[in-house]
């Protein structure tokens, strides 16, 4: 197309196409130059065909810019180019009319007029916002330089696009334990039989699904499969139980379904459908030894046995009364799903604990537990588990516990507890009562010999019946001797997610009976966290 022979409307079309195609971008500048440089003499169409003739035939004053097409007297809204002109004005201010406010759209235009129209358009285009030749060169250089990275990123993005997450709200964690365990050869407690002293290899796997329901609520579903047989059978006493023992024949079972919600800055709510426990919403103040996979190797060493009263279903609340004082209350029952028992007669445990924190690394807790038919904590002597020798079906127990933990150095913590229980059998003659006592002191040295390690010691007396109105064969049904629980373990963190914990337990006078041989238990627990 040759500008010089264009009619006014056709040059508008040209200008629009130039603008639309990015005439003002760097690469197109040369095209304009080419167009302008064309020699009209090669063009057979050069001869003026327009009846009115070229504008320069009768010189006129410079054209003037417009603000609306309607200002032009000879352009009507019905003209086919009306919209085109309007958009040129609005977007680029590129329309110029004659001083008499005519457009003379059917005329050919001169080079002067074309230049004038172009000039009218140019100042409106802010060239600084476009890339320069230099920028393009830099961009190309960067593209070349990062070609490999871009390919990698593109590959990754493609891979991502193919992955559909199962859930965007649920995060998965897990833990697997492999344990080699052995009991020293001696006699079982309360028995002439020898202990089951063969070395065993057993395992436990736990899968946690933590689902965020909003910002403040967490739903947890835990599956567990294990085959770690109970050492109470091998040794004859519950005092020898391991923290991580349990046997489901390696079948996965529902271990916990709970919901935890921060109601506000002060109050946290926790509800359990399966797998509840008082300690899950109460601060047990034995932080380093509390965990079964990473802490104490014994069940007794984990926490005050008082926290093991109560059932699996229920709820708890934690109130942060102020920066230092918190109150935990809760109620958990068991077997409430069975029509022959029901919620009303279900075994339960209710707790209220007041905790005072001197600092974040020192605190003391005072707890009260009320329980019904839920006294068996599987940590102490046989009599402490059942002080009424299986005769009572209505044991109410009031327990008071005090526990404290203190960080005495950066990497040394001492904790301890004492528990005192008064149990009453309401369905036996004279309502006999029994008194059960336990205590322990634990020492934890985290990061000893390497970050993530933990050396731990436990010295304590597992639950013991110190006094009992209930009599068997005319003698008070109480523990006459005192056995101690001594334990040491050393958790070594081999790698992120892998730790190995050798440890041993010594029970002097197991079952609080000096006729029993001491029991030795040794284990090497390997824990994988993922």
């Amino acid at each position: 197309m040759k500008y010089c022979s264009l009619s006014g409307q056709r040059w508008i079309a040209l200008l629009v196409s130039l603008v639309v195609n990015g005439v003002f971008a760097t690469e197109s500048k040369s095209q304009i130059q080419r167009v302008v440089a064309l020699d009209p003499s090669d063009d057979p169409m050069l001869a003026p065909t327009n009846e009115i003739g070229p504008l320069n035939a009768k010189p006129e004053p410079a054209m003037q810019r417009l603000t609306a097409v309607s200002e032009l007297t000879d352009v009507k809204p019905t003209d086919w180019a009306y919209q085109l002109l309007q958009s040129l004005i609005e977007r680029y201010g590129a329309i110029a009319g004659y001083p008499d406010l005519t457009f003379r759209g059917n005329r050919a235009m001169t080079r002067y007029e074309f230049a004038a129209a172009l000039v009218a358009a140019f100042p409106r285009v802010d060239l600084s916002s476009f890339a320069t030749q230099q920028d393009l060169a830099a961009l190309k250089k960067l593209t070349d330089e990062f070609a490999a990275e871009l390919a990698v990123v593109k590959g990754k993005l493609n891979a991502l696009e193919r992955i559909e997450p199962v859930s965007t709200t649920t995060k998965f964690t897990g833990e697997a334990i492999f344990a080699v365990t052995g009991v020293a050869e001696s006699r079982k407690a309360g028995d002439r039989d020898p202990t089951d002293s063969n070395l065993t290899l057993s395992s436990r796997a736990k899968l946690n699904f933590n689902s965020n329901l909003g910002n403040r609520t967490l739903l947890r579903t835990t599956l567990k499969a294990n085959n770690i047989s109970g050492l109470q059978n091998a040794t004859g006493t519950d005092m020898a139980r391991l923290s991580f023992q349990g046997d489901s024949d390696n079948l996965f079972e529902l271990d916990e379904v709970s919901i935890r919600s921060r109601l506000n800055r002060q109050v946290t709510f926790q509800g359990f459908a399966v797998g509840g426990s008082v300690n899950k919403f109460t601060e047990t103040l034995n932080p380093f030894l509390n965990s079964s996979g990473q802490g104490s190797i014994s069940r007794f060493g984990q926490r005050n046995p008082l926290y093991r009263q109560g059932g699996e279903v229920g709820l708890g609340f934690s109130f942060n009364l102020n920066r230092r004082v918190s109150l935990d209350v809760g109620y958990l029952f068991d077997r409430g799903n069975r029509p022959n028992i029901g919620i009303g007669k279900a075994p339960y445990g209710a707790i209220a604990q007041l905790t005072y924190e001197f600092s974040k690394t020192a605190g003391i807790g005072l707890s009260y537990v009320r329980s019904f038919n839920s006294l068996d904590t599987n940590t102490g002597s046989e009599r402490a588990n059942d002080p009424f020798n299986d005769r009572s079906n209505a044991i109410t127990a009031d327990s008071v516990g005090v526990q404290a933990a203190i960080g005495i150095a950066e990497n040394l913590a001492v904790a301890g507890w004492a528990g005192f229980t008064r149990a009453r059998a309401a369905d036996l003659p004279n309502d006999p009562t029994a008194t059960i006592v336990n205590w322990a002191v634990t020492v934890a040295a985290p990061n000893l010999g390497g970050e993530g390690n933990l050396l731990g010691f436990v010295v304590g007396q597992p639950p013991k019946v110190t006094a009992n109105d209930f009599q068997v064969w005319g003698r008070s049904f109480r523990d006459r001797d005192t056995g101690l629980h001594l334990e040491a373990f050393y958790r070594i963190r081999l790698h992120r997610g892998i730790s190995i914990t050798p440890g041993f337990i010594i029970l002097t006078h197991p079952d609080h009976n000096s006729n029993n041989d001491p029991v030795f238990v040794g284990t090497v627990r390997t824990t994988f966290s993922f």
Partner: protein
Amino acid sequence: MVYWKFFTPITLAAVALLTPQPNGTAITLADGTTYFLHPPRLLGAVATQDGTNIWSASYYFTLVFPETADEPLRTIVIAQQGGLGRPIINANTVQVYEGTRTRQGKDVPIAASQFDSNAQTLTLTFDPPIQPGRILTIRLNPVRNPAIAGTYLYGVTTFPVGTQPFGHFIGVGQIRIYDSNQD
């Protein structure tokens, strides 16, 4: 998985291979905004003691600050993004050094360290700023691990020097906290 890089010398080799930009000129826009040419990258995060409620834990964040970054590093911001608990970070015991967690190099002085417990954000400022071409490890100490187990996410943002530095978000570190109360 990213965290394996913590322990392998491959990472060190990879960084050494990043050749310095010959006549690198800092990226500064007309309005004064400064950018890293190649921003740092987060290699990963790890907790040493990962049980709920315990103290004496350290959280490590390791990042590569490439030689080609072109601008010194003035500020690092670590902000908690996920997790129900709100662990408080002790701003006074933060340490930064060159190298990885297991291969510690020399200490990097911190000019200012601030923890905002409302935004759960730790801000570290360096004066003099850190020069490019090194691996950096940040060690944080929570006053105590959170009481609620789960996966805690920490977003890391780095700022170059300049009056108007642009914050490059360089990645999310995962700190996993396991429940001590589950038997």
